[in-house]
């Protein structure tokens, strides 16, 4: 079977080197002792499951965070990139990232927001060509949003 070059390009765009790297060696993977906020993210469609641990200090800054769980390359890489992105940030800024990233991936909206540098996160852009996979990429971000808002129900992508 000869396949169209476009097909290979889209696949390579989805599984970029940075994504595969984070999927294979996720950053801040594991349980965080002394977490002040946690949230579960569940994707009922494919069974992706992750737990996010946040340590938020008195100044409402994310001192540290981690995640554990299992999922596909996209969901694990996205969670790993998330931890790289929001560590050390004020809660409000992390929430702004949630907003920008989920809009970017679900609505294709690529507006720049002042003070938000999503350079690395553009590695996730490939999922926009794969509607069935957008939820994998946004799962960790929904969990972040849920943890910061202390929602008791697990975040789902449904």
């Amino acid at each position, binding site marked *: *079977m000869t396949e169209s070059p476009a097909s290979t390009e889209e696949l390579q765009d989805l599984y970029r080197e940075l994504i595969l790297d984070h999927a294979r060696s996720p950053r801040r993977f594991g349980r965080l002792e002394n977490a002040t906020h946690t949230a579960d993210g569940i994707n009922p469609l494919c069974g992706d499951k992750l737990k996010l641990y946040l340590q938020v200090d008195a100044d409402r800054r994310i001192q540290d965070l981690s995640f554990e769980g299992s999922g596909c390359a996209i969901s694990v890489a996205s969670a790993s990139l998330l931890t790289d992105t929001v560590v050390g940030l004020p809660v409000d800024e992390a929430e702004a990232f949630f907003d920008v990233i989920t809009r970017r991936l679900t609505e294709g909206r690529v507006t720049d927001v002042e003070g938000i540098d999503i350079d690395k996160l553009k590695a996730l852009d490939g999922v926009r060509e794969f509607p*069935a*996979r957008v939820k994998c990429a946004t799962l960790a971000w929904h969990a972040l949003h849920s943890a910061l808002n202390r929602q008791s129900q697990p975040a789902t992508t449904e």
Partner: protein
Amino acid sequence: MSQPQPRTASSVADCRADFPILEQCISGAPLVYLDSAASAQQPAAVIDAVARYQREDHANVHRGVHTLSHRATEAYEGARDKLRDFINAASRREIVFTSGTTESINLVAQSYCRPRIGAGDKILITHLEHHANIVPWQILCEQTGAELLVAPIDDAGQVELDALLAMMTDDVFILAISHVSNALGTISPIADIIATAKERGIPVLVDGAQGVPHLAIDVRALDCDFYAFSGHKMFGPTGTGVLYGRESLLDAMPPYQGGGDMILEVSFEATVYNELPYKFEAGTPNISGCVGLGAAVDYLQSVGMQRIADYEHELHDYMVAELKAIDGIRLIGQATEKASVQSFLLDDIHSHDLGTILDHQGVAIRTGHHCAMPVMQHFGISGTARASLALYNNEDDVNRLTEAVLKAKQVFA
């Protein structure tokens, strides 16, 4: 009603041309559909039968004196006769139309079991079951205090027969077991299991959702008490299904739902229920769907269930051999007796990623837990990639599958 055309095709593989949906490209490549265990595609004969019914014959059934109502009733009841013949039930009274396997099993749990069961009774299932043959029993246990027992499986994905037989004790009220595992393709030796259950006076429900598309079913030879299956797994419309029940048992069961069509006479003092099988078919049924299901039976019989089983068996063995030859593949489910399904994993690639890469080459497979999470737990995995075959697949499809899997290996290299 139109009669099935005798099939002159020399090979089952020629059936592919009967399925219009397969004539399309996905991501620029001809579609290879390997997800029939989730839902099978429909031949033109089924699609046309439904359309013809809607265009020419539709009205409500069992109600009107007018011509269309008569035609609709003939078509609907004609489908019931076909289903009776298809599984060799003794009487059309034993064929209850439902929305699918799930409703069929819930019907048995709530109507047959619930009034008769209590604390101390046991319901026996196996570790192989689909959620549809687990959750209705858990609900029943919560309602009645009965206990759910689960017979173990081995690492090939087969029910451990000795353990199952040992668990079939006097306090088991019903045994509910799948004929063919949806996640692994294991064919359980249900004839022998049912024979033992009969000796011990235990009624048996068979979840036949994955059995009917691949094996010739004879409920009288099996001697099961209930056999549940879905239309859309056997090339019929979604939202259709059958509960076969032994007449003496169905007769003694109260209705599952109340409504129109399931009554003989209603007053505010008392209601007299209709006879079988209408007692279990409250409300206007899925008439066009059942007409389509009848057409699916015609279609399958025109090909011949034994020919289908033989053809698929050979193709399944080819698929397993081809997959096995791929470096880094792990086959999940290697029972001695299997039908049409192979679950697998590749290296440390998540099944969802495999599914996306395969889809991008036009190959449709199922990924995830296949609504059988306990099976996944047994193997210590969260899910698998699953390729499932039907009569319209061929060796080219299998070759495309293995090429696509090799491509996935490349992407993740």
